[in-house]
């Protein structure tokens, strides 16, 4: 009887990053074959080892089948309809920010990521990737003084080929899985970070991925190497225009932490999720893996997955060094018709290694949210610990949450702990809150933020605030 915003009626939703930039682009014709790969490699003026590596991956990919085991449903993807390379048309790669096309700078400004020299984000170095290429990297010189390399992947291939050749594909081999193989064949850009021995990176490094052109797939590749005793905190953000077609994003991220090194990797994923009927949106099929290669090393993944029509990703840690630590903190929100199948793998190879998994899945509308996790402790990896907590929150009764945890412990001195729950927030809870004066939106946002607190506190302050806002915006119009 109370008219207005009962949880079923909230029907507004706005994706404010849905604009397009009218910029002239140079694009390859749609479709995939060896010539396209040669074209990408040539465009990037790559050394021959890179082309070989790509072709090998491509030939392997041809023999592979798209994975069917994930709890997501979509019509078959036509890989020949995708554009594998698109770049803003410029004479040459800009040498400094001053040379970057003002239209591109304006685009990032609109996204809240100022890149111009006067107003760069304080304390955050940003690499901005637009479709297939990196368009700008801030604070580069400043970081170089410390020996830190933070640049576009394509630049690293030019300027540090020995590092690329040494580490590329060592964590996620080109044959790892269907999407990783595809990425290895056609990846166009991404970020590269190298933190030398003993250096503590003084600022957040961050990459902002933007898909702009239609029909394009974004295949970026990120490689982070933390030498002995170094530390780096890295953030990535992503958005895309609203388009009626689905677009494919198949990224690969590799992290390598050597002795006593620490890498913190955070993602706020806000790709266009499609409209409320499930039309359009990004297919986010991503392989992220880190290796704690050295003793006492530590890798933590924090992800806030809000966007994409479909998310398929399992940021994982291979704990090879003794006493190393792997962590995974995740908030995955699916609303309307979104689907997510996400989680992590913690592979304990070294002794006394520890892992922590905190997964918070939120589903609203007709969305489906799946947690899939693997904790594997090998026989020789004695004295290991894992703590997993996997919580699901359902908003309304038309959405679903699913969990597929898998635990394999091959020795008796290791311990694993698993905690799981599913809670439902429905009309009754919302009415109770409204009877105490809270609006339905405030009630949902309070409940959700409380639910996600443990993950948000792993994010740098301003990103936590941003992530919270994103969730709230995303939940508007979905609850019920």
């Amino acid at each position, binding site marked *: 009887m*109370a008219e207005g915003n*009962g949880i079923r009626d909230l029907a507004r939703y706005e994706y404010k990053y849905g604009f397009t930039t009218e910029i002239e682009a140079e694009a390859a014709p749609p479709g995939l074959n060896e010539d396209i790969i040669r074209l990408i490699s040539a465009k990037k003026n790559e050394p021959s080892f890179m082309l070989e590596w790509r072709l090998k991956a491509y030939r392997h990919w041809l023999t592979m089948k798209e994975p069917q085991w994930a709890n997501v449903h979509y019509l078959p993807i036509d890989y020949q309809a995708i554009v594998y390379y698109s770049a803003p048309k410029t004479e040459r790669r800009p040498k400094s920010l001053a040379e970057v096309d003002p239209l591109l700078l304006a685009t990032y400004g609109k996204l809240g990521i100022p890149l111009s020299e006067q107003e760069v984000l304080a304390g955050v170095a940003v690499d901005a990737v637009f479709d297939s290429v990196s368009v700008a990297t801030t604070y580069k010189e400043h970081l170089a003084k410390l020996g830190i390399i933070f640049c576009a992947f394509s630049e690293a291939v030019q300027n540090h080929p020995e590092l690329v050749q040494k580490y590329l594909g060592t964590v996620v081999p080109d044959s790892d899985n269907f999407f990783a193989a595809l990425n290895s064949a056609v990846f166009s850009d991404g970020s590269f970070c190298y933190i030398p021995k003993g250096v503590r990176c003084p600022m957040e490094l961050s990459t902002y991925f933007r898909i702009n052109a239609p029909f394009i797939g974004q295949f970026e590749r990120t490689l982070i190497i933390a030498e002995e005793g170094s530390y780096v905190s890295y953030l990535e953000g992503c958005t895309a225009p609203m388009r009626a077609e689905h677009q494919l994003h198949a990224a690969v991220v590799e992290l390598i932490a050597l002795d006593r090194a620490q890498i913190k990797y955070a993602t706020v994923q806000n790709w266009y999720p499609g409209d409320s009927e499930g039309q359009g949106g990004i297919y986010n099929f991503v392989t992220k893996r880190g290796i704690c290669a050295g003793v006492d090393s530590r890798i933590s993944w924090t992800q806030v997955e809000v966007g994409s029509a479909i998310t398929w990703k399992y940021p994982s840690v291979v704990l090879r060094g003794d006493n190393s630590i792997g962590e995974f903190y995740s908030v995955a929100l699916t609303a309307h018709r979104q689907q997510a199948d996400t989680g992590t793998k913690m592979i304990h190879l070294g002794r006394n290694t520890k892992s922590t998994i905190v997964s918070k899945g939120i589903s609203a509308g007709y969305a489906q949210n799946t947690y899939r996790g693997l904790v594997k402790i090998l026989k020789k990896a004695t004295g290991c610990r894992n703590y997993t907590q996997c919580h699901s929150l359902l908003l309304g009764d038309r959405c679903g949450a699913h969990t597929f945890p898998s635990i394999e412990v091959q020795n008796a001195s290791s311990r694993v702990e698993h905690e799981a729950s599913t809670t439902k927030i429905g009309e009754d809870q919302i009415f109770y*809150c409204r009877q*105490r004066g809270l609006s339905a939106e405030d009630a949902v946002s309070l409940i959700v933020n409380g639910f996600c607190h443990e993950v948000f506190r792993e994010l740098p302050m301003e990103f936590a605030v941003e992530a919270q806002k994103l969730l709230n915006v995303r939940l508007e119009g979905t609850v019920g």
Partner: protein
Amino acid sequence: MPDPILEIRELHASAAGKEILRGMNLTIRAGEVHAIMGPNASGKSTLAYVLAGREGYEATAGTIRYEGKNLLIMPPEARAREGLFLAFQYPIEIPGMTTMQFLKAALNTIRKHRGLEELDAIDFLALVKERAQLLDVDADFLNRPVNAGFSGGEKKRNEILQMAFLDPKLAILDETDSGLDIDALKIVAGGVNALRGQDRAMLLITHYQRLLNFVVPDYVHVLLNGRIVQSGGKELALTVEERGYGWLEGPDARTSEEKAAP
């Protein structure tokens, strides 16, 4: 005579297509405490839900004025912000949010609405301590998710705690006394009495005379088949307890409160 806070006129209301309230009249003025008694399924909670604006409970005819305004067009949160409070017969669990967070958000929303400054963490904590003491509630309780895993009595006490916090103008207590042990009943009654005042009114829904020994009502009404069939002073509650509701059924049962109310 003070102005009415609540005026219900010829109210008909239904849930799931079934008529439950059938021409109900009731006037409550500032400073008054009214009790409503009635057998199971007579429509007491329905009345409370219609007043609070719960979805699914539809007023099909008649009017409700709250401080002179048309209550029926106000969304539930607007009613709450204007001082209408409902202590639920079955308080709802909200996992994922502590009572403390919940109270703070609710209080500040209501304060903002009333043009008062929002309380910061420190002032809020001080207030929590004071009110919690009043109701003999310990801090551990406040740090647990709202009502989750609370015993029946704890839930009821939590309702009264919230009421003590939110400073309502019209408090509707739907069987807050049911399921309370005698000590808890006294504490809850103490909380209710502490809130009694010139500019506040209360509507107590109850099955038992027991509560009314501690919170003495100004008026008692009997709700039967969706209508108030008898109204009187506190002695009516005693009669009901003694004789049940049978004597009120039938053709000559009085159907209007006006006869008894001043």
